[in-house]
């Protein structure tokens, strides 16, 4: 379909755009303040909302999502709608409190573990959490490289090899984050986020016109006749059972929208004020539903057009439809759509990978180098060291991506699952004074082991994801806290900060 030259030119133009944004943002910040960290930022609500949504979109909207709807059907979409609604309530009880406490401490938190340390004052816990958050980062960054490289290989009919694409995309991603840091990633998210949401819906409409003359009713009727399983549980592939209808969205509600390190810092640290935090809560579910519905419709139209794709091919349903249906309808439109698909997949994927890469480098520099190994990097060398770390992490993810599993979905969901057990520690740390650091450490370990057992021993990862680990972690947190004690002075300051922050930001009228 596309020549390798077209793909490389597209890459080059997109890289120029990213580097242009990075240059603009860093120059603007240099004028405002010297010596700014690459790993922290504070942004107004439109950028906050878009960088958050773009981080969630990642490779989901163009790859894993359409494939998952193709296999899971309408019931799968309903299960997603159930968790998307939960963001405001979870954010209110957790991330807005995290935001206030961070502000009260001067906005100095870089990594999720910084917050946990504030509450539990345990260097060991900080190190363990740093390692777990880091472990979640690699599969996710790799998933992006896998998705984009598969797109390049598919779009060129194999003219660009998968391995070559992994290397080039990996290098682009690493260079961009090294140069620009987190604020340029957030700004690029805003610019391209709306554009690619528009592109997603363009693909939906174009495929509907090509496949069914623009009639949504015809598409639904066809599907109702040929694949009625799309409209009921457990879906066309028998995948959305009662168990996974709960396990999957519950994992997303906790893991994907709150606990993954790149969304944790966005939802908890990035907002420039509490009004921005609230706007994030108001807008996110609606905007996410709009995007996810477009993704679902791609799966619906794809299944109505062709119903016998292998599971691993379902994630390439968009380029499949372009190649097999749009080309015959209008070759020029097909080329434009393929380029759009490729750039869109690259852009939303890279924005997530950039976000992950930035926070992962923060974990290494802050949680591990500075606070575990007690190595003090001079302030003037901090940026240089961060760039080295970003480069090493980027190359590490690139190496993982060279030999990936069958489904991108698997990589993404494992990242989500492994951080889920850390949620009860966050909640109980905020609301229960008796929670101890010993309990936090034990519950982290118990939860992580349970997630690993869920995936690799019990083979229940595809149904329950991180839910068993989360429940195990919650129970361990309560039980061990009741049997252990921690010096009250360790948490006294934390709760004083909570009270001060509450009084500073809220006028409670009840």
């Amino acid at each position, binding site marked *: 379909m596309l020549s390798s030259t077209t793909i490389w030119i597209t890459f080059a133009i997109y890289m120029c755009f990213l580097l242009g944004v990075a240059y603009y943002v860093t120059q603007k910040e240099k004028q*405002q*303040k010297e010596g*700014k*960290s690459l790993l*922290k*930022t*504070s942004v107004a609500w439109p950028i906050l909302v878009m960088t958050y949504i773009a981080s969630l979109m990642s490779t989901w909207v163009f790859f894993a999502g359409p494939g998952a709807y193709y296999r899971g059907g*309408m*019931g799968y979409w*309903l299960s997603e*709608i*159930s968790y998307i*609604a*939960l963001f*405001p*309530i979870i954010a*209110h*009880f957790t991330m807005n*409190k995290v935001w206030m406490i*961070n*502000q009260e401490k*001067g*906005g*100095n938190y870089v990594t999720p573990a910084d917050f946990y340390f504030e509450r539990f004052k345990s260097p060991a816990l900080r190190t363990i959490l740093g390692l777990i958050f880091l472990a979640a980062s690699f599969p996710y960054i790799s998933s992006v490289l896998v998705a984009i490289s598969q797109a390049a290989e598919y779009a060129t009919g194999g003219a660009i090899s998968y391995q070559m694409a992994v290397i080039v995309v990996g290098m682009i991603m690493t260079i961009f984050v090294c140069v620009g840091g987190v604020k340029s990633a957030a700004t690029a998210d805003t610019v391209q986020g709306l554009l690619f949401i528009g592109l997603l819906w363009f693909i939906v409409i174009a495929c509907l016109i090509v496949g069914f003359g623009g009639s949504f009713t015809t598409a639904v009727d066809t599907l*109702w006749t040929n694949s*009625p*399983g799309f*409209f*009921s*549980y*457990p879906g066309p592939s028998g995948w959305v059972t*009662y168990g996974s*209808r*709960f396990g999957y969205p519950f994992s997303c509600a906790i893991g994907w929208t709150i606990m993954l390190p790149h969304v944790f810092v966005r939802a908890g*640290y990035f*907002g*420039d*004020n*509490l*009004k921005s935090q*609230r706007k994030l*809560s*108001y807008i996110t*579910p609606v905007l996410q539903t709009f995007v996810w519905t477009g993704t679902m419709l791609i799966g619906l139209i794809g299944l109505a057009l062709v119903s016998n794709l292998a599971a691993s091919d379902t994630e390439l349903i968009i380029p499949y439809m372009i190649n097999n249906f749009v080309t015959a309808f209008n070759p020029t439109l097909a080329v434009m759509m393929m380029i759009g698909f490729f750039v869109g997949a690259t852009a939303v994927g890279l924005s997530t990978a950039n976000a992950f890469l930035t926070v992962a480098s923060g974990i290494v520099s802050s949680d591990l180098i500075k606070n575990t190994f007690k190595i003090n990097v001079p302030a003037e060398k901090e940026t240089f060291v961060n760039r080295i770390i970003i480069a090493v992490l980027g190359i590490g993810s690139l190496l993982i991506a060279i030999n990936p599993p069958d489904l991108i979905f698997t990589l993404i969901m494992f990242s989500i699952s492994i951080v889920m057990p850390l949620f009860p520690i966050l909640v109980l740390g*905020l*609301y229960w004074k008796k929670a101890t650091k010993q309990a936090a450490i034990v519950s982290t370990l118990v939860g992580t082991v349970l997630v690993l057992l869920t995936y690799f021993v019990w083979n229940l990862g595809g149904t329950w994801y991180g839910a068993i680990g989360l429940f195990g972690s919650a129970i361990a947190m309560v039980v061990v806290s009741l049997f252990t004690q921690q010096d009250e002075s360790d948490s006294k300051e934390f709760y004083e900060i*909570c009270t001060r922050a*509450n009084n*500073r*930001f*809220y*006028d*409670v*009228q*009840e």
Partner: protein
Amino acid sequence: MRVTKTEKIWLVVVTVLYILYNFPGLPAYDEPVPMLIHGGLTLIPLWIAVYVGMHKVYKVYKLRDSKTDSEGDK
């Protein structure tokens, strides 16, 4: 952290609706119409509860007019 009565009600209502949506055995497998009815009866109230609750809780937690909200590295 203190939790107000409005927050508790919000949390309970949303949790109950989320459990209702996930109640095992409902709707029956391979039944399209019951799935849509079940989704409508549980998910629409869930969304309404989340947004109405959010509005009420934010009214309880009025924001102070602070020009120094963020002390991050703006």
